[in-house]
């Protein structure tokens, strides 16, 4: 049995000046790089494949397998330059793990980038970071500068003949740019709109060249796997969801924050660690992995938070963004706000999502105001049905998740929206942090 919490990525976050090269190397940083540079690229791909590491950006696709899709043979694609792009756009509502990781220990990511680039034989890599996090951008820029100065980046790294150049690229505010093909368009200086697939990024990604796109946490996990080995990694987590991961607890809880644990821990266990819900509060509903994952309720407190467990409960592990709401919270209000977000962020490329999210907001608004019309719930479900599976990218699908799941568990609140405003049923002031539960304005 491993311990309940297993800090690996977060282990050095409390260290003095943890973001500097000095502090990172003092606690063992860049030793994995030395080891990785002595390994053949194919062996690194095999290592990561065998470790069972699955993408931490939401989909859970095996990272090593993704790397193995990059053509390395004598084909036309195999002869093109290869690129590694780190997805640091972190914008899925509720998701807040990559930003603190890069703020505290940007070198963990940089070390992972160099190793991953070596593995897929990419000479150039990019970190695409959302623009709205100035200090994180600074920390990344400085880490890259320091890594160059130390000879960890550049040409002929430490005399091994390996070349890797890395650039930090700041986005400009668009959730859709987290979608990997939209991200590529954005990185090419275009509007961030998803691309038609095929061709897939592994063949024609950035500049129509073979490209791997991985989440920050996925890449940051690589150095520890190189150092620790696959058995070490697999000693944490569950059969099909191996290793440790960052769970982000937020909302009406006593101790919100980042909790690094083996995959498969439950929300009940995580909540207990931090003293549970805020004083006098009960858990009403929660998202397991951001707003695009169907909500769950208190009956799901013991669901193992791994890909299989959350899937079996009818949702998705997603980004492990555990947003917890208590009994003071109106489900209708929350669903409306999330839907407004999707409407705003819809890139407009396809009709089901562009039109669908518009109509969803119209209907949800009147339900929120207590002016719902008979048939509105069916209308919502029908609209969702027309988006799910018909949208061009997963943003559209994600937009339907909160709605259909909320109707499944809290249909009565939507019915109440035919006559009573949500703000009457659930006065918003009671949900704020400035009001003790049960207190008045």
């Amino acid at each position, binding site marked *: 049995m491993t311990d309940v919490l297993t800090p690996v990525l977060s*282990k050095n976050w409390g260290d003095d000046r943890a973001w500097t090269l000095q502090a990172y190397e003092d606690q063992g940083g860049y030793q994995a790089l030395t080891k990785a540079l002595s390994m053949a690229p194919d062996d690194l791909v095999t290592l990561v494949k065998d470790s*069972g590491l699955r993408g931490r950006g939401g*989909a859970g696709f095996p990272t090593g397998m993704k790397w*193995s899709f990059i053509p390395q043979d004598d084909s036309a694609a195999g002869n093109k330059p290869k690129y590694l792009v780190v997805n640091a756009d972190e914008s899925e509502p509720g998701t807040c793990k990559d930003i603190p990781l890069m703020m505290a220990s940007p070198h963990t990511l940089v070390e992972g980038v160099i190793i991953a680039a070596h593995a897929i034989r990419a000479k150039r890599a990019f970190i695409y970071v959302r623009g709205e996090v100035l200090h994180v951008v*600074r*920390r990344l820029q400085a880490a890259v500068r320091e890594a160059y100065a130390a000879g960890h980046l550049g040409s002929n790294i430490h005399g091994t003949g390996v070349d890797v150049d890395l650039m930090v690229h700041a986005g400009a*505010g668009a959730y859709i740019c987290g979608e990997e093909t939209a991200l590529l368009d954005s990185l090419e200086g275009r509007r961030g709109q998803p691309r038609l697939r095929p061709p897939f990024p592994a063949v024609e990604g950035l500049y129509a060249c073979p490209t791997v796109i991985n989440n920050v946490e996925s890449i940051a996990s690589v150095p520890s796997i190189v150092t620790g080995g*696959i058995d070490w990694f697999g000693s944490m987590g569950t059969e*099909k969801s191996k290793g440790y991961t960052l769970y982000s607890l937020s909302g009406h809880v006593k101790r919100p924050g980042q909790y690094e644990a083996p995959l498969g821990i439950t929300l009940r266990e995580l909540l207990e660690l931090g003293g549970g819900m805020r004083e006098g509060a009960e858990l009403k509903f929660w998202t397991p992995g951001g707003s695009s994952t169907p909500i769950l309720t208190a009956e799901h407190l013991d669901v193992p938070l791994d890909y299989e467990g959350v899937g079996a409960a009818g949702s998705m592990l*997603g980004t492990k963004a555990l947003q917890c709401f208590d009994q003071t919270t109106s489900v209708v209000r929350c669903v409306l706000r999330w839907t407004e977000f999707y409407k705003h962020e819809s890139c407009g490329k396809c009709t089901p999502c562009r039109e669908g999210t518009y109509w969803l907001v119209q209907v949800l608004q009147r339900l929120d105001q207590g002016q719902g019309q008979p048939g509105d719930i069916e209308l919502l479900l029908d609209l969702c049905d027309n988006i799910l599976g018909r949208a061009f990218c997963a943003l559209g699908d994600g937009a339907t998740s909160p709605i259909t799941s909320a109707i499944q568990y809290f249909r009565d609140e939507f019915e109440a929206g035919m006559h009573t405003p949500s703000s009457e049923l659930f006065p918003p002031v009671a949900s704020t942090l400035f009001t003790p539960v049960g207190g008045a304005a």
Partner: protein
Amino acid sequence: MSLHDTTRDELREIAGRYPEARSALLPMLHLVQSVEGCVTVEGIETCAEILDLSAAEVSGVATFYTMYKRRPMGEHHVGVCTNTLCAVMGGDAIFERLKDHLEVGNDETTADGKISLEHIECNAACDFAPVMTVNWEFFDQQTPESAVELVDSLRAGEKVQSTRGATITSWRAAERVLAGFEDGLVDEGPAAAGPTLAGLEIAREKGWEAPAPGGGAGPRAANGADGAGGTKTAVATESPEQAAEEADTSRAESETKAAESPADTKGGGSDD
């Protein structure tokens, strides 16, 4: 008004950093904003000229992204997160109070030109809710009162430091950093604070840690101490199709279908 030669040089410098110059457009527009206070026609034309694009193409990109502003911005950009979690925890109340206090609406600038107020989407800091930003620096765990104090200090020109970052400069100075020019403030502020350290602190109290590296302390330690050589365990997913099935729904779609694509030569990257 005309863009200074130094700015043109810097714009060209950014374009030169990328394998293909057009990739520089987003950082170039950040730089235009830092110099001009918003994305101006002149800025658009200059970017277009350097990148050999039409002004319409550049404009089409600029209007797609919310961080690019078409109207002159105030000295400071103040953001209030009103995405669901922050909104519920108090973000809505904070935003209402600030609109009142500053006498502006969303995306408007105060009469003294000091503050542009905007409600923003989830800024990846939900464990610090309710969250605000000033020039894209975090101001965590805010209340309506602390928010009013914050904007008053900014208007009075007092020194203000982010709760997890550096001393506040200006929106324009921030845009310059986003364009790729460091400003020397990286070492201000902590590595991590408050909620970021919640799990780590509990682990320390309880004496919990990850198994020792290389040890393979768990049940599957049979393959020896150092797995890095690529010892094959009978684990995980063997085929792309199976991986696709096990991955979470449509978000895995692209990766999934990559398996069927011609790229799937599995050349040197394959282990068997």
